[in-house]
């Protein structure tokens, strides 16, 4: 229905490192996601992140679907992972 859109202000998945570090004990930007929309898999750091919005919106570079949403309230962080089939987290020392 639409023509290809303009990307606008955007960062890569490394920009989520600080917020995700507060939730997880591991560096999630190094984990691999599998997109629920197209099953594309790659490092979280390769996601396209729209940050000038009410939260962080990380989209799959292959299909544009939303993979991760991070919403930050003053006293809590909401992490919405419904767009990710799984996260594959490398373990240190293995």
């Amino acid at each position, binding site marked *: *229905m*639409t*023509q*290809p*859109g*303009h*990307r*606008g*202000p955007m*960062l890569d998945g*490394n*920009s989520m*490192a*600080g*917020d995700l570090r507060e939730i997880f004990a591991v560096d999630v930007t190094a984990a691999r996601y599998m997109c629920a929309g197209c099953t594309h898999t790659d490092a979280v750091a390769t996601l396209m992140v*729209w*940050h*000038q*919005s*009410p*939260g*962080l*919106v990380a*989209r799959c570079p292959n299909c*544009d679907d*939303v993979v991760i*949403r*991070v*919403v*930050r*309230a*003053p006293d*809590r962080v*909401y992490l*919405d992972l*419904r767009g990710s089939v799984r996260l594959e987290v490398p373990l240190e020392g293995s």
Partner: protein
Amino acid sequence: MGIISRGFGGRRRESVPGLPPGQYLTHDFPVLSAGPTPRVPLDRWRFTVTTETGDRTSWNWTEFQALPAEDVTVDIHCVTKWSKLGSTWRGVSLDTLLAGVESAADYTMVHSFGGYTTNVPMEDLLDGKAWVAYKFDGEDLEPEHGGPARLLIPHLYFWKSAKWVNGIQLMPEDEPGFWEAAGYHMYGDPWREQRYQGD
């Protein structure tokens, strides 16, 4: 890295009397976006109201432009804490768009080109409280601000005023949209500071 800088929420500024709690005044018009900006050709634009029984009423751009329009001047309040006073819009009232629609639904889901959604109770769309706006400040609404047309529902936080709107689904039960499912408030009244779930 923390580039989100406390989600705009930490931008403590002096509150202005007459603004909802926690808001600060801005004179520009910040662009917030959760994804690529859709470019919608007017010959492919369509706005569709779908009832809870599946009945559809829709308008193409030409038909939509032929509907009676209203000029409104309203204050808008973004959940990221900026407020803009006296913004001027032209659009079609939801009272007009829903006038011929038979429905007993109490809730709606607003849909946009690009996949964005937001939930709004039916009563918040009626009685002169909401418009599908296609002009801002006398000019055609720019794509960055939701053009060709966006919802305008100024009494709720501005994430409810969906950009690039293309339809409304009428629903018997309330369901969360894009931001509501990710932690934002189901209703979003700025005067009660309903920013996040539980507020």
